[in-house]
């Protein structure tokens, strides 16, 4: 199982703040493509990704148990 966390407008687009996916292994890029087939998330191509609270590139491997968060452009401070 992979946990996906959603924030800001991504959270509102999907209508929830987390998605659980029964996946064993994937990559950031594949996960984005997969999510876009189910949810209205065109912005996913333009957001950063964190795996287990660390920023990750598109080719980063993800395995069961990982927590993936999509990080839209930051506007804190």
């Amino acid at each position, binding site marked *: 199982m992979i946990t996906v966390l959603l924030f*800001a*407008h991504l959270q509102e687009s999907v209508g929830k703040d987390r998605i659980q996916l029964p996946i064993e292994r994937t990559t950031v890029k594949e996960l984005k493509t997969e999510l876009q087939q189910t949810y209205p998330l065109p912005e996913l191509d333009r957001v950063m990704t964190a795996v287990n609270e660390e*920023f990750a590139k598109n080719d980063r491997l993800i395995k069961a148990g990982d927590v993936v*968060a999509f*990080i839209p*452009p*930051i*506007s804190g*401070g």
Partner: protein
Amino acid sequence: MASELFEIVEESIEVGDVIKKVERREAGAITTFIGTVREWTQGKQTVYLEYQAYIPMAVKMLSQIGDEVKAQWPDTIIAITHRIGRLDISEIAVVIAVSSPHRKAAYQANEYAIERIKQIVPIWKKEHWTDGETWIGDQLENVPYKAGKPTIKEIEG
């Protein structure tokens, strides 16, 4: 104690509490940055703001900024508190306090920290106007990255 230098809170921030964390007998200079909710941005009136954070990662990134500051300005101590939730006009969203034996480093480290917060700390704000609302960052003018999306280099510091 060290873990409390970097906090995400839901209640209002007392500037003095953040300053106390960096006070010490060998520091002659303390700088603070206080970010407040501005009523007017480019002609648009804000009614209130809502901040959301990916809390554990935000604390981790604030702490990483602390490490970066320590590497560049070894004599400084820095503390950062960022508030989330609903904030009204003039309320404090973020306080950065830096103490240092000498003032130059206290200014530089402080300004460095706010720039980095806007690059790597996962916090988002939603503007509420009289006629609508939107999450800031994607659609609006103040995307913090030059290229519309941060590079890994910007993120890793």
